[in-house]
């Protein structure tokens, strides 16, 4: 029996010890009407050999393709050591470190992760991770509502330049608790928050302002002005960041003229998680020390054992649902432990210089790509101003159709923006991380040129 070690002898001995005749008797407290289960349609157990072959075939169907899509998930090189070590059984098959003395490996690693995250973001405290970037934003909003005792409105200003899926998730989770999201349009020339639109909220009861950096379009927000605006207006400043970008961009702990952002969230995927079809990733959440007791999720603290040796434990558990139940800061209990393990190893391997190189190469590749693509007739940048490693381009044809034609050449040319922003017709969001070579950029440019030429020829004909 796969994964069940019982021999016939074992079963008999065990049944005798329990005092029943058959395993089925152990279910005799259950109403008999419930015990006739049909599992029609579930195939019989496959051998590992058969499933191995099936999965190889299916994986091969999805393999290949040169990816210029970003939009919240980024292709970065992950050093081989990351997952070779992270999937060691002692990390992979351990659980939440409820018995800290038997879980110092996981606990110390998370403590190191928290330290690195505080370093990257310039914040005081990091938790042990949340599910992903989008849900982390939702948790940050709820946290802001709890933390901002002066505000009664539960009103959160949400720029259009926050990832559309993040906005959706934040709404889907937070609206249940009466949070009201007010949209902040972007300024059409720059694609960044329209400061005039923001100014209309000055003096109102605003609970929090969300500040993306870089924003969904790859553009850079004036985070200092935004953070100061939030603090001037009694709002909590919630940064939404890309951790790789923080190698080059000012860290949220220093945004503005005061103490920086209050809460910082972001998608951890660029730190060692493969794109993997969308997950598992992990959500970053950091905050200032004064908000630590409003922070959701697990957190690890350093303490001592009875001989005075350093050791690590889960701490601040009274915030959590298994103690505080309906009064918990969140219902979240798991973190994304395995991904945090990988990220911590990943950050250790890259170090500050490595992470900076990844960021700088991504910026440079995206600039080079944009140059090559905008050299094609009819292709142009939509927004001015600097961008990080993504950029919005307008094509001289319907983006969907062009992207489909590119995909047939095994080039994933970016994300069509029309479904999310009605005004961005024919627009695509493109991204070129450090994984792209000059030859890759050339290949994209050539393919796009061919596709557009073919369309032009077809429309002439």
């Amino acid at each position, binding site marked *: 029996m796969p994964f*069940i*070690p019982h021999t016939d002898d074992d079963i008999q001995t*065990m049944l005798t010890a*329990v005092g029943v005749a058959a395993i089925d008797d*152990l279910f005799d*407290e259950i*109403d008999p009407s*419930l015990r006739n*289960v049909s599992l029609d349609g*579930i195939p019989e157990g496959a051998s590992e050999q058969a499933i191995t072959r099936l*999965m190889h075939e299916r*994986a091969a*169907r999805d*393999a290949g393709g040169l*990816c210029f*899509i970003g939009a919240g998930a980024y292709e970065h090189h992950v050093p081989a050591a990351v997952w070779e070590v*992270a999937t060691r059984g002692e*990390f*992979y098959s*351990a659980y939440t470190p409820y018995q*800290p*003395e038997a*879980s110092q490996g996981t606990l110390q690693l*998370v403590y190191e992760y928290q330290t690195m995250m505080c370093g*990257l973001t310039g914040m005081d405290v990091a938790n042990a991770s949340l599910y992903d*970037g989008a*849900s982390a934003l939702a948790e940050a909003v709820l946290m802001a509502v709890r933390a901002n005792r002066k505000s009664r409105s539960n009103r959160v200003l949400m720029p259009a330049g926050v990832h559309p899926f993040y906005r959706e998730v934040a709404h*889907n989770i937070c609206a249940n608790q009466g949070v009201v999201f007010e949209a902040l349009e972007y300024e059409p020339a720059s694609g960044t928050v329209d400061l005039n639109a923001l100014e209309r909220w000055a003096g109102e009861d605003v609970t929090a302002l969300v500040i993306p950096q870089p924003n969904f379009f790859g553009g850079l927000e004036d985070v200092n002005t935004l953070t100061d605006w939030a603090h001037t207006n009694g709002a909590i400043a919630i940064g939404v960041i890309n951790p790789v970008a923080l190698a*080059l961009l000012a*860290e949220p702990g*220093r945004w503005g003229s005061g103490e920086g952002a209050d809460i910082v969230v972001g998608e951890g995927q660029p730190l060692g998680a*493969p794109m*993997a*079809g*969308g*997950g*598992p*990733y992990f959500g970053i959440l950091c905050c200032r020390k004064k908000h630590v007791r409003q922070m959701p999720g697990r957190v690890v603290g350093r303490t*001592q*054992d009875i001989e005075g040796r350093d*050791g690590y434990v889960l701490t601040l558990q*009274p915030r959590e*649902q*298994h103690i505080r*139940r*309906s009064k918990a800061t969140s*219902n979240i*209990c*798991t973190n*994304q432990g395995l*991904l945090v393990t990988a990220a911590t*190893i990943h950050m*250790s*391997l890259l*170090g500050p*210089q*490595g992470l900076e*190189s990844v960021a*700088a190469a991504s910026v440079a590749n995206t600039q080079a790509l944009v140059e090559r693509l905008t050299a094609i007739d009819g292709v142009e940048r939509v927004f001015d101003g600097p961008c990080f490693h993504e950029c919005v381009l307008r094509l001289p044809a319907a983006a969907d159709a062009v992207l489909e034609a590119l995909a047939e050449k*095994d080039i994933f040319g970016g994300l069509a923006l029309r479904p999310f922003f009605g005004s961005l017709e024919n627009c695509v969001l493109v991204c070129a991380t450090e994984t792209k070579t000059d030859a890759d950029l050339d290949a994209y440019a050539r393919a796009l040129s061919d596709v557009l030429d073919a369309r032009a020829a077809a429309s002439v004909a």
Partner: protein
Amino acid sequence: MTEKLIFEYSRPGRQARAQAPAHAPSREQAMANVPAALRRTSVLGLPEVSEMDAVRHYTRLSQLNFSIDTHFYPLGSCTMKHNPRACNTLASLPGFLNRHPLAPVSHGQGFMACLFDLQQMLTTVTGMAAVSLTPMAGAQGEFAGVAMIKAYHESRGDTERTEILVPDAAHGTNPATAVMCGCTVREIPTDSDGDVDVAALKQAVGPRTAGIMLTNPSTLGVFEQDILEIARIVHEAGGLLYYDGANLNAILGKVRPGDMGFDVIHMNLHKTFSTPHGGGGPGSGAIGVGKRLRDFMPIPVVGKDGEDDGARYRWLTEHDVPHTIGRLSAFMGNAGVLLRAYVYARLLGAEGMTRVAEFATLNSNYLMARLREHGFDVAFPERRASHEFIVTLKRQKQQLDVTATDFAKRLLDYGFHAPTIYFPLLVPECFLIEPTESESRETLDGFVAAMVAIWAEARDDAQILKNAPVSLPVRRLDEVAAAKNLDLRAQSAIAADA
């Protein structure tokens, strides 16, 4: 054996050079167009180490953990069973790992086929009408479930139904989730058999009842004997039933929540479908719905057009799921975890799923019988154990002044991870013990022998237990001091001005 912090290996200028891009512009070049005020000027606070430093450090750290791959880990309610390695290996094939979540579906048919097949298998084995795989953990599955219940009532204009009934034995996530969904919580007591107090339930239901959240078998390790009656009461009152799948391992393939009358369930795939716990996650909280809630499922969900070789998979949209509570994650939940669950489900097949419940239950009842034989008190001696059961060490505490914690810490010295302690809250000095189906009789016998030996030690010299653990990398840790003097990051490593 302890291990330094990674930061203590750090030296300025040291690096694992091969891991970074070979050619990158300088920080100044890359940031040339960026206003100075937006640029970073401080150091990053990351360690500077070689590849070997990192590999050696994290390999050593890993060895400080107990885990399934090294120890019996009978943590009640957590289903710490064997994680077949094929699940990891096959989910890690390059074709799956390198796929962007927004890549065209034409280039994701293999991945989507796996998810679709998993949806189908989970639908069948739970007896529900449909499954959405997107929730990223049990608690998010719970959220999705209660949010759907709320949306259902609202869609019918039944807006007063905002009260969620929760048995007092429930996991803390249940009331926490209800509150996250903007509901209020009403606790239902447990009767002396460990079942929901049906009389109290009858009192509690009414026009404000949105639904009830039930774990079945419950956290007390017993199957609700009155489950059909409970379903009738709640449904007749206009409420819906939510099944907390934390303990699904107990009944997998044997009894189905859909047949019991549940309208929505979540499954902890990292428990029942053996995806790894990973030191705390990722979990995966797929949800199943009955017909009433089908149109409310969270997206993304995979749909299929055509059959066999002509099958083509696509993402279902708001069009297909008109009342969807929407998206709960940026992309497709914990997709890689779902691939692992898929491989596991295929390896088990229908008969294997049923065996899960049978042998998890056999192991649990056997372990309970053996411990009782040696004089340990169990919480519900007249009941069958489900896949887990409760030992109460109240008597040992009274007679010998040793606590459940003391027993737990001493078990670590015997090479066993401790069971869940002090949960459920209703039972004093309790051990919630879940052996799972993948442990052998010899291992269970070894655990019994350790428990007996520890009790004997307690009679002999309680200090042995109080001093435990003595064989681990650290002795007992001061958790009170940790909460009082918060030390949540290594100060020395914090960014200074560059």
